[in-house]
């Protein structure tokens, strides 16, 4: 009887030990909501980084587009200035005497805005002005606004010419309305 009791006691002790061991989870930690805070932190950092990179890059893109438009405007101004130079040096088109030729630039006839229709009131110191859309064979073209000013240099007894060519990145009709019209200017003096 005593023997049985001892065996039973030992069995019970072993059982108790196993039960106690099973009650103790190895990785039990209290959940206090820290993970949610960490997740919010990581998400906000990622969002801030992403949006700030995007802001910088969109500015880069605007800058490169402005650079591109600037090229169009510059070469429009340059072409217009060369055109005025050509008609002045080769045909004396901007003289006080109305020329016989019809001046064309890029296949378009030049019509002076100032003086209108080359009126007789024109004097050598007047500024002649014309406006054309260059490179319009594909698209609306780019506006060029050219003024040619003739003056007399009394000391050298020669004619001074000042050509100011404004080139735009949009067509002449769109200058006033386009939100992103760009202007470049080329000036020739001789």
């Amino acid at each position: 009887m005593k023997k049985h009791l001892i065996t039973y006691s030992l069995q019970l002790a072993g059982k108790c030990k196993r039960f106690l061991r099973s009650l103790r989870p190895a990785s039990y930690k209290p959940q206090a909501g820290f993970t949610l805070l960490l997740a919010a932190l990581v998400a906000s950092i990622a969002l801030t980084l992403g949006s700030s990179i995007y802001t910088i890059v969109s500015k880069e893109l605007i800058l490169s587009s402005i650079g591109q438009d600037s090229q169009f405007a510059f070469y429009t101004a340059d072409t217009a200035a060369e055109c005025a130079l050509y008609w002045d040096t080769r045909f004396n088109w901007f003289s006080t005497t109305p020329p016989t030729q019809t001046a064309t630039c890029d296949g378009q006839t030049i019509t002076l805005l100032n003086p209108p229709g080359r009126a007789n009131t024109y004097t050598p110191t007047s500024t002649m002005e014309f406006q054309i859309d260059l490179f319009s064979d594909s698209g609306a073209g780019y506006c060029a606004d050219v003024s040619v000013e003739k003056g007399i240099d009394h000391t050298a007894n020669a004619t001074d010419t000042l050509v100011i060519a404004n080139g735009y990145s949009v067509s002449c009709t769109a200058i006033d309305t386009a939100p992103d019209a760009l202007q470049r200017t080329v000036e020739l003096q001789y």
Partner: protein
Amino acid sequence: MRKQLIAYSLQLIEKYKTHARSLQVTSYRLQTGFTLIETMVAISLLMLALIPPMSLAAQALTTAYYARNQVTAYYLAQEGIEIVRAVRDANIIAIAEGNSSANIFDGIPYGTTAATAPAFTVDALQVTSSALDTCTSSGCPPLQTNGSVYGYAPGCEPSGTNGTWTTSDCGTASGWTDTTFTRTVKAYLLSSSDPDEMRVTVSVTWKQGSFQTQTFTINEDLYRWVSG
């Protein structure tokens, strides 16, 4: 002895019982990990929080590359115009110096109409008319770089004035490697009846990403403002 052992055993049982009772936390629940639904909700929330900023950053990177290439392309196009212009201006100087046989458009391989205008390349490293070489029907070779300037590997370009390219790619030679940019220049008279006005068109084409091809084109009209 046996009596003692029994008493000890009973004491031991009592001890364990007490200990076990003390360990039983009333609000204790068994943590056996997350359920599938919990995991999926957590993953989807994490994705919602991380994917938009990540894709924003990725898109920004692609756009940054595009902006960089666009800036490079318009400077290359500008260089192309300026080289042709420099050839024209060198002729003006030759005429001004009394070279009666010089023509203002000498050295520029131009066509009388846009359709017949030959495509040619220019090279900033040798701004003479010999650097203006016409391309084959398969197109102009891609621009190369040696790490500091754009051009073509030395010895690759055809020799002589307005030579014709025999290769469509200069390959890798003495530190020069291909770039993604190809610059094609065309020059033609705006009107075949008017030999005084010449249109110069420079197109810079580059590969954006794996499939997209971008082109930037600028035009300039050159005039024969000095007779000759």
